[in-house]
């Protein structure tokens, strides 16, 4: 890895937003391919944070600042990425009706973006119709549903059925504190992950 790619990776991992922006600009000026910066510096930086997270060496604050640095770098990079290199695919994320909690969904957004997905976050407390509308509008590679309460997670089944009525092959992932693998299987979800990093890993697997 070039010294500059290494420095971009370190800046993202340290959550240094300004440094990340400057280094990405420097990289582009020096002729580095935008795709190379994304795939060889920024995505691996988030993967490293994910590994540290799974070993309890990094916690949510470190994830949040790294994601902020990644976002800063992406602002510079995005206009320069060609269509096919724009990422792994589009993910639409939202929290189901009755549930106004956002942190779990937001962490998944950060990790998905960190893994190279483009993410459209449609918000919280969304009626089933809103998910169907968003699915039809964006035709995402993956639709992600979040719920923090055992009462609201029941809505996930309703959303899955409604979205599958318009596209039987829709890939739909579910997650949130009360959700389990067993529950995900019972309601017909395509995938489940117990935390935000694993959600990004699972999303990559689903698209293989």
């Amino acid at each position, binding site marked *: 890895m070039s010294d500059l790619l290494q420095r971009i990776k370190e800046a993202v991992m340290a959550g240094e937003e300004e440094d990340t922006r400057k280094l990405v600009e420097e990289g582009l000026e020096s002729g580095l391919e935008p795709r190379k910066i994304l795939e060889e510096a920024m995505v691996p930086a988030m993967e490293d944070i994910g590994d540290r997270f799974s070993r309890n060496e990094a916690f949510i*604050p470190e994830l949040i*600042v790294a994601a*902020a640095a990644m976002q800063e770098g992406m602002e510079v990079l995005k206009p320069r990425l060609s269509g096919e290199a724009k990422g792994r695919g589009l993910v639409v994320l939202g929290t189901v009706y009755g549930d106004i909690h956002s942190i779990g969904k937001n962490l998944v957004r950060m990790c998905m973006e960190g893994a190279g997905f483009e993410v459209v976050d449609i918000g919280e407390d969304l009626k089933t119709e809103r998910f169907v509308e968003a699915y039809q509008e964006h035709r995402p590679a993956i639709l992600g549903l979040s719920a923090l309460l055992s009462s609201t997670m029941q809505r996930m089944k309703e959303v899955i059925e409604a979205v599958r009525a318009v596209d039987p092959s829709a890939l739909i992932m579910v997650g949130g*504190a009360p959700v389990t693998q067993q529950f995900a299987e019972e309601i017909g979800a395509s995938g489940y992950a117990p935390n935000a990093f694993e959600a990004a890993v699972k999303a990559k697997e689903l698209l293989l």
Partner: protein
Amino acid sequence: MTGKERMLEAFALREPDRVPVWEMAFNEESIIKLGAFFTDDLPPMKFAQQMTTEEKIKLLSTLFTAARELELDGITSIAILATEPVDDDHVKDGWGRIMRVSEEGEATPVAGPVSTPGDLKGLKIYHPQQSELLMLMAAKGNFGDEIAQVMVQPGPFRESWMLLGSMEKLLYYYVKDRRFVHGLARVATDFILEVTDMSADLGADIIALDGDLAFSQTTLMSPGQYEEFILPYHKEITERAHSRGMLILKHSDGNMWPIMDGIVEAGFDGFHPVQPQCMDIGEVKARYGDRLCMLGNIDCTYLLPFGSEGEVEETVKKTIATAAPGGGYIISSSNSIHPGCKPENYVAMVKAAHKYGNYPISIEV
């Protein structure tokens, strides 16, 4: 023994006559559905924020009726901060925090009066009003010293992020601006100490410090960040509660293992709710049962919402067998009786606790 004596004995890590039964929170819908077991005189089904004063009083009276009929050993009160409506879904409190009202639980802040470190200096400090502790006054007036009076208030972590309107923002500043995090915690802690003093004046026996510090996998912050940003303020609050003759417990959902030593060091007397998906109550008791009273552990994620009454009874029996011998255990759900819990399952939980919770515990599982 009275309910209060039973609770205090459990907190003293001794065996009372039976395992105390208590609950940290019930939502409006849960209170009304539970109340329907015992009375026809119920308030309309809506959020407390949308109720008239008369309807709020009826809601409280329904809660008290259910607590009395179910022979609960403690009653929980919250400070109901005065709010003004912003629109159909949002209210604003005295700090200027905009809260979104939800069908499924408490109002959640979506915007705070502080956005950046520069805003802290100009923050208008809000002081709690005694009228905002009306629920505690009513509970004390209704039950006196018959059962334990528990006052819930957000801890410094939750109060801090509520001032910012977002937990993510606070955690971002854990790395980016430590001084700002301490500044927020100072403001938050001073407010908590004021409420703690007022609660003592009004006769509270126990403070329950709310605000999750963990999620299913681990803590939200590292143990080092807990020690730096939260522990000193927890210490101040537990010292104040103790100096005013009260006990204090820490509530947090999730896997709290990484900071359990800190919870003990902070001076808490109890730990709630020992979420069964994340922490084994037998193991927590084995490691901390000589220093902390355990509260909770009856699953409100799957068991109380979807289980049968028989399954609830079986779980209560097993949990008592594991956690109650030797004292230091108070039974409750693993968070609260939220609208998803079947009311008949909660009644089954309380009945089972009374059936199997008599000391000395002699349950064969």
